[in-house]
């Protein structure tokens, strides 16, 4: 997907595996929270109302990033349908749905040491994240979105040009974990 990324598609050394995720349809949704029900219906998934909370149904995922901001993710096949549905909604309920599929690089981090790995660059206490929640935060000064998929499983999304820096540091940290000190 991006030849400049410093990792193999699925690196396996150390106690955390780091896997580049395939392309997905990804949108930034801004809408008056009063219209959440309509937006949920349009997306096909009940959007969470609390910042940091997520929702998912296997095909779609939503994470509330701000008082009127959500990041919506879905399989690529759903891209046009989602865009079309929101375009239809616009006339009645103006909002902003901007495609950011290519803005982000997504990586899955999984393994028993995943919390330690993330603590290398992220000042937020990710141990406190409930499974199915996340946050827009920073990693080594770079904005990232973290989502906790499972007790030992996170998805990290980062703007494309920052990905090599973030992934290189994660790789360094994985080697550090492997060294055991």
């Amino acid at each position, binding site marked *: 997907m991006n030849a400049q990324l410093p990792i193999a598609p699925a690196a396996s050394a150390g106690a955390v595996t780091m896997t580049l995720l395939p392309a997905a349809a990804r949108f930034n949704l801004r809408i008056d929270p009063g219209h959440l029900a309509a937006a949920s219906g349009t997306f096909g998934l009940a959007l969470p109302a609390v910042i940091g909370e997520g929702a998912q149904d296997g095909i779609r995922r939503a994470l509330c990033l701000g008082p009127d901001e959500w990041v919506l993710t879905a399989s690529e096949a759903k891209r046009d349908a989602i865009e079309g549905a929101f375009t239809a909604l616009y006339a009645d309920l103006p909002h902003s749905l901007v495609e950011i599929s290519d803005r982000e690089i997504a990586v899955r981090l999984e393994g028993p040491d995943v919390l330690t790995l993330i603590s290398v660059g992220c*000042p937020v206490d990710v141990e406190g994240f409930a499974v199915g929640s996340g946050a827009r935060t920073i990693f080594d*000064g770079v904005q990232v979105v973290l989502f906790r998929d499972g007790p030992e499983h996170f998805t990290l999304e980062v703007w*494309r040009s920052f990905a090599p820096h973030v992934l290189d540091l994660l790789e360094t940290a994985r080697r*550090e974990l492997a060294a055991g000190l």
Partner: protein
Amino acid sequence: MTTHRIPSRGRIDHARPVRFSFDGTTIEGRAGDTVASALLANGMHLMGRSFKYHRPRGVVTAGSEEPNALIGTRRGPGRFEPNTRATVQEIYEGLTTESQNKWPSLKFDVGAVNDRMAMLFSAGFYYKTFMWPKSFWDRVYEPIIRASAGLGKSPSEVDPDTYASRYLHCDVLVIGAGAAGIAAALQAGRSGAKTVLVDEGSEPGGGLLSEPSLEIEDQPAWDWLAGALGELRSMKNVRLMSRSTAIGYYHQNMIGLCEKLTDHLDRLPDGAPRERMWRGRAGQVVLAQGALERPLVFDGNDRPGVMLAGAAQTYLNRYGVSVGHRAVVATSHDSAWYTAFDLADAGVTVAAILDTRNDVAPDLLEAAKSRGIETLTGYTVTGTKGRLRVYSVRVNKVGNGKVGPARSLACDVLLMCGGWTPSLHLFSHTKGSLHWDETAEVFLPGHKAEACHIAGAGRGLWGMAAALNDGATAGAEAARAAGFTSQPASYSLAQDRAGRGVTHKELPTDLDPGKAKAFIDFQNDVTAKDIRLAVREGMRSIEHVKRYTTNGMATDQGKMSNMNGLTIAADAIGKPAPKVGLTTFRPPYTPTTFGAFAGYHRGGQFEVTRKTPIDAWAEENGAVFEPVALWRRAWYFPKAGENMHAAVARECTATRASLGIFDASTLGKIEITGPDAVEFLNRMYTNPWTKLATSRCRYGLLLGEDGYIRDDGVIGRLTSDKFHVTTTTGGAARVLNMMEDYLQTEWPDLKVWLTSTTEQWATIAVNGPNARNLIAPFVEGQDLSDAAFPHMSVAECTVAGYPARLFRVSFTGELGFEINVPARHGRALWEKLWEAGQTHDICAYGTETMHVLRAEKGFIIVGQDTDGTVTPNDAGLGWAIGKAKPDFVGKRSLARPDLVAKGRKQLVGLLTDDPTVVLEEGSQIVADPNQLKPMKMLGHVTSSYWSATLGRSIAMAVVEGGFDRMGDTLHVPMPGRTLSAKVSGTVFYDPEGGRLKL
């Protein structure tokens, strides 16, 4: 050879010898030794030379506060560290160490001549001695002082080690794993709180490691310690960290912790970092830092063999080392009596215990008597003898304020104790206030500024029972404050050696105090008389005394010297100590490596380097790069044998002649959507937007509230409610922040939303007469004819099958298009265009050619031709202001008298009289080169290039009243010559814009 080892004592492994070298000699220690304990086990006290007088110095302490025993340590190439404290450095097989500040050898040092000339080097001597002649300071005095000053040698090779960092979160962070800290951590851990216990030492235990004779809860102290540590280690919610120094206490309970990972290992594990900086955020902090022993101040108190009594007790009980064969103890505190008893019980001769106090507890006197130790109460110390090691101490009885006759006691170690100073360093970092305790004559923690609790000796309590029980109380308080339930445990102790003492200024003497070398700051060689001299010379504040004498300014930050310095300064000034004040402690608590602070930020990880999706193609095709904000951008593409000048000239010519291709992906992009999008743009940008038709673009100019240019870019209207805004590369984040700021704070009523799409799109600019011919075959869904898609148009279509936003814009003056495709397709599209462009002699160009081509057209670069003081009118961009608009950011400022005044600096062109001369950007412009200096400067050159198209140089400049100087000759004075140039307009090429109309 281990002449001073006591096999029955200590926690070291007597069965495991470890060899290392000190100044080239192989030394045998034991596993668990520090360099200092191993040298002492071999009877060696002399470990260094002092900073100023090069006096022979021995080890004084057994901890991180050590001022004297600073050594260089080496582990192979690049792994050299100066000023390591021998008292902290653990030995390992093969460790290489060396003493410092000596030449040619530690035992015979030429620099020691300074000691004989000590009268020349009194306090403030730097300020007095090197005053004349003035010109000598820069060339002679300062270089010599710098060459001879300093401690140790700086490493000169690249550090091959790596350094790590992590964040740490916990409910309760306990700093210091002595009795109080362990008790606190047990409370917090048992309550279920996420607890971290950190200690700078190699082994947790603190003072307990030096007190094996205690009984805690009916167990020998070390058995209890092992049990307590075992319990802590077994708790999943507790993390126990050794070799981890809390270096700083920052806002809202953020603690910096530096963990040393490998400095004690004989073999370095693959990939292991040397140190890790933890950035800890704790709900509650328990400070259990303990107290530091205070030296007594008397003539010759720095001689090798003179050391702190508590240190001797640690060397005996923790390391199994007797610091000498015949000890004299001099003290003003009960604690040193117990040291004497431990030594005597281990078979060491204790010749005498001298106490400055007349009334010493009878049980102590009795205990000394039972061991056959002579006791001297109400005595003073007035001198020591011995060059590289003390061999006798001069003592006198003090009575009725008079110092009696002297008596000499033979000894090979003199163990001193002048009381104990609670460690306030981290508490002081929080800006918590200090409280002066009249009775104990110490500063104690007062008002707290952070969620912290102070326990044990750190708040002036003495004795292990007090420390344990206070630690338990503090731990329980911290756990409760963090939301857990905890009742403090109560500990019973037997054989506790609580005690008390007094503190002193310099001890009284029958000799000339003006000749006494009674040291306060051992590391910076500051004596008691230096402090008194500073006061005599007018220093009244302790901050001034400190800077004049350098007391407390060494790397130990005065851990041993501050209180003695303050006591003596207060005495000299005639005010109580709290009125004279205590100097400020600053992080880090102990010297910390640059590596630990830098962490991962070195080499490729030094700073983020953003690269575009097309960057790799540029690299493969020989591009030279330049940094632009965090991005690296292709600067120019030299062919074999070309320098930058030739490459840029070729790229410019090729683009104007036929076709150039340029990676513009770094341009900032913001999607602005909503029914009020057009109103929002009207308010943000100077230009009018209401009448901009769908599918058309306009140049937008963004000002600050002050009316000065902040950013610019082309804005395209995709639908009535949706705009694609571009910003400068460096301004992207700033502009989005500014827009969000206005939207959220000034106009929350507007229905409009902003999203950064900078990285969603890869942007390829194609320019030149053949630009349309190149892209037309790839474009579907848009008629590219000039009539259907005129200059300043935008369309959503496909290019090479990729969804695209196609702009017809030009930053070169040529027919131009900017193709935005989803970033993942950027390189593929580029390569398709590159291949197809071969028939048009396509030329890839970089940022330098982009700059030249735009300058030929007089287009400004914000931040190069503007500097935050340039208005649209100054830049000749008055046309971009929507004059009919009621308001926009900066509008009111544009009417300010100084912004409409005549004679402002205005952006003009400059054409040198000699067309081959390219002016230097930044050079100053004057009207008359023959005027007297300093000349009146009219402005400066902002952009200057060789224009291959025009066959001459061109430049832009901001010049006072520039618009009224058209055709005038101005001058640019340069070293060795003065250049002349004529003022012109800024559009040097195709002023009619005919080339756009293809």
